[in-house]
């Protein structure tokens, strides 16, 4: 059976996007440990990240995650290239704000800013903790890698605090449009269901963006 690229590519972007949405919930839940008082936060956060690193199931999920990010980006790029070709000349005047949201018109640009964020985020944490690049990561009293300290030190640099917080704005915009669109792309068309979906997307995007956006400040003022 011949696949239709118009549907296939978008389905891939949607499916990987939804998986990443799920991941963000888990990620934010874990990060809430950082909101606890210093002593408790350090112990639990480090214990949790050790558990993550040593769990074989998480290893599989981690590879699925890397793959999802890459596939999401590559397919979004393919989609964008075809879309540009489909509209080679743009209008002299175009009031897109009258018929659609800014985010929906600029998902590529917003996505690019998130990609840059992810690269820097991975360099800050993943590269140091998992790949052992850069300055050595210490161990805490319980003998776990002191991931909390890495976070604590990073978020005592106001520039990183601002960077991590501000970049949650494009993330929120991306999720708000992306979540509901992904469901529609995958064929969810129930009339009232779509209204509920729109509300869920808004709440989801707001909680994720606000949650991740506040944590750096909380750590900064500890």
């Amino acid at each position, binding site marked *: *059976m*011949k*696949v*239709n*690229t*118009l*549907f296939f*590519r*978008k*389905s891939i972007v949607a499916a990987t996007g939804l998986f990443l949405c799920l991941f963000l919930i888990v990620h934010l839940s874990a990060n809430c440990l950082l909101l606890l008082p210093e002593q408790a936060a350090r112990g639990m956060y480090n214990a949790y990240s050790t558990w993550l690193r040593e769990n074989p199931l998480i290893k599989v999920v981690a590879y699925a995650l890397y793959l999802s990010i890459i596939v999401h980006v590559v397919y979004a790029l393919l*989609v964008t290239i*075809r*879309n540009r*070709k*489909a*509209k*080679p*000349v*743009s*209008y*002299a*005047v*175009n*009031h*897109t704000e*009258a*018929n*659609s*949201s800014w985010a*929906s*018109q600029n*998902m590529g640009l917003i996505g690019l800013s998130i990609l840059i964020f992810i690269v820097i985020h991975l360099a800050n944490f993943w590269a140091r903790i998992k790949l052992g690049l850069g300055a050595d990561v210490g161990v805490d009293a319980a003998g776990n890698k002191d991931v909390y300290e890495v976070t604590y030190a990073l978020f005592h640099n106001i520039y990183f605090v601002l960077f991590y917080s501000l970049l949650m704005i494009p993330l929120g915009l991306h999720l708000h*449009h992306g979540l*509901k*669109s992904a*469901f*529609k*792309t*995958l*064929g*969810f*068309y129930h*009339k009232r269901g*779509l209204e509920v979906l729109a509300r869920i997307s808004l709440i989801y995007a707001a909680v994720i963006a606000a949650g991740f956006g506040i944590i750096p400040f909380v750590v900064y003022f500890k």
Partner: protein
Amino acid sequence: MKVTFKIWRQDKPQAKGAFKEYQVDELTEDMSFLEALDHLNERLVLRGEKVIAYEYDCREGICGQCGVFINGRAHGPHPNITTCQLHMRSFKDGDTIVVEPWRANAFPIVKDLIVDRSAFDRIIEQGAYISAKTGTAPEANAILIGKAIADRAMDAAACIGCGACVATCKNSSAALFTAAKINHLNSLPQGKPEAHQRVLDMTAQMEREGFGHCSFTGACEVECPAGISIANIAEMNARQGKAQLLG
């Protein structure tokens, strides 16, 4: 009333077009937008200049021939109407009104404001019909159709094929048009026997014509004169998936 029209002029498909400005007076608020263009063309004839080419037929929002991009919106500043249903009272005295043809790779410009929308016809040819010869219209109650289904099919069938969805879409996606045609037939019993093949053939043609992907900006349903809901695209996606698996 007096306005300045800034209109895209292009002699032939391959020519390099450009905007040209025209001051037009003696317009009234009751004139339709097309009448204002007629009025301008009459002046151009008197001055011995080439008239502006634009399309229309019914001038009552039925045929879908008249679409142009007016001041940054498909069919002008109001949602869900055609260009022929737009009136000069929607503009102010002294306004500059920018008029452009639909922009899409799949809709090449023929001349000035006229584009070639035969890509739509080729999508229709792939299956937006019932292939069995049915003779004259059968007795209306011979096939029973529930009201909810009849309404959904009717809503989708309202598409007049004007191309505003493609024109306003940043990706020039023809998803709304194609979805309307598919859902119209596939939700009715008469369309069921060929349902899967219809979806596959029509969407394949949509792909071949060089339309873009749908990214659900929602612009199409706002500009669609028939108010076709974007939920139709999600429904087409579901039908496409099903046809791909079962067809």
